[in-house]
């Protein structure tokens, strides 16, 4: 099976946001958009749900906090208790700083790791798709031509009204 993709190029962030809204309203299936920077409002126009990464961050943070606090109490008060300066063996106030650091470390690394995983970013990977100047100065909107009812001319006109500078069709092999 393969599918046809309809690709529209824009020069400005405002244009692509408006065009995406219009495409959504016209019932087109929006595959993705490719932009040189994070365009605010485009996620809403595309109907993307907010990311769930904050949850990953929270869970990793909690994990780091509990593990490190437990570890400090265990090493200082149970595994090898040493009286230092008359401080209590389980000196909770003194364990706060390191617990905090490890919380941040876990939360940060966990979030970024999860981000790389879900976005399939890894060293040396070739970009899955490549659109002309999409990382420089073009804002690219990609639609799926779902069925025969897809009207090339009408869609092109729609985008031209929104300042589209170039359209293109691609055949994409689909697994």
């Amino acid at each position, binding site marked *: 099976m393969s599918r046809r993709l309809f690709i529209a190029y824009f020069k400005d962030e405002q244009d692509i946001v408006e065009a995406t809204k219009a495409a959504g309203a016209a019932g087109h299936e929006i595959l993705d958009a490719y932009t040189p920077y994070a365009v605010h409002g485009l996620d809403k126009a595309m109907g993307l749900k907010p990311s769930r990464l904050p949850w990953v961050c929270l869970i990793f943070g909690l994990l780091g906090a509990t593990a490190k606090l437990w570890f400090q109490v265990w090493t200082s008060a149970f595994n090898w208790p040493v009286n230092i300066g008359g401080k209590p063996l389980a000196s909770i*106030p003194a364990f706060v700083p390191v617990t905090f650091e490890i919380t941040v470390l876990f939360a940060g690394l966990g979030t970024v790791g999860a981000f790389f995983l879900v976005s399939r970013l890894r060293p040396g990977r070739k970009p899955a798709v490549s659109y002309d100047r999409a990382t420089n100065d073009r804002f690219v909107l990609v639609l799926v031509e779902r069925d025969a009812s897809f009207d090339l001319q009408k869609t092109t006109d729609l985008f031209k009204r929104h300042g589209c500078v170039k359209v293109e069709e691609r055949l994409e092999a689909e697994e």
Partner: protein
Amino acid sequence: MAETTYRIQAPASLPVTTEFSPRALRMFLLLVLAGSAFVVSGLALDSPRIWPNLLLAGFYVVGIGLAAGFLVAVSYISNAGWLTAIRRVPEAMASNVYVGGLWMIMLLAGVHSLYEWSHTETVAADALLQKKEFWLNVPFFSVRTIAYAVLWSLFTYLLVHTSRLQDETGEVTLTLRNRAIAAVFTVVFTLTFWIASMDWIMSLEPHWYSTIFGIYNFSGTFTSGVAAVTVAVIALRRRGYLKEFVRDDHLHDLGKLLFAFSTFWMYIWFSQYLLIWYANIPEETAYFLKRETAGWGTFTILVLLFNWVIPFIALMPRSAKRSEGVLLRVSIVVLVGHWIDLFWMILPTFMPGSPSFSIWELGPIVLAAGLVCLVTVRSLTRARLIPVNDPMLLESLTYHS
């Protein structure tokens, strides 16, 4: 959206004085009168108990005013456009500096009931207090108290007056002028507030000292000020006053401020605690020892719960910061927490051992609450609810948080 905004934005024909129902004003006035009667009878019946509570409430009121004024000042300096649409609320709240300042000045009458160092016979018997006499003596203390009140009132007046003047003239230069006033106010405020908090609160235990004390009080005061502004904004919005202007984005930013400063408060609290706990120098540790033993230990946990744990957890999700209901409840928690915090700082001097509560705690609370509401609402009626000619207004009305 723009169309509706503008139409409501021109309340030129709206007589400003009838914006609030006289019933509300009467209720606040009643609160003030009841509180005053309460306080007066307290002074007659149980004065050692009422003075510390009067100090607490007075500091609370002047703090709310200062925090609101500081918020306005910082928004000018940092070009924070978002606050513009709701700026009239902290501006009105800043008027509490006048009454709070007056309150602190009147409190000088009770200086001997509050401060150990004000008794010459105590100082004569205490070598350390003699060394501190250059600073801790009644005449100089009184001069300082009056100076703080006057300086703060002056700058609050200038800031608010200039902002309101812009409603009339529409000149952008007034924004620039206020930016300069705000910069000077910030300097004056930071230079005086930390000493004031040391004078009024730290010197209750004159043998003890902590360099972070001023910052600690700033963090608590500012957090409670943000909470008070949030409560007022939500209350106004619910009554339909700011409805068209205050969007969830404004609440979101207020929520972020509350979250950040509550955490800042916790940071400062912990910094002070950890260093004193760790070094364990007798004259420093005495302060926390008093607050860790018996009933005060439980009370200390309340301080942390109300000022940080609850706000931190409740405001963590983005949706909570945008929710009127959550934000209102958390703000009230913080306002109560600030009272608990001040109680925790002030009262152990007067009741070592365990905290106990009596009916006399209520008098100053009622008086302070009534005054803050009355002053804020009356001040709100003196100007437009929206700074209609502020160059940042449109930005504030349309921004996304």
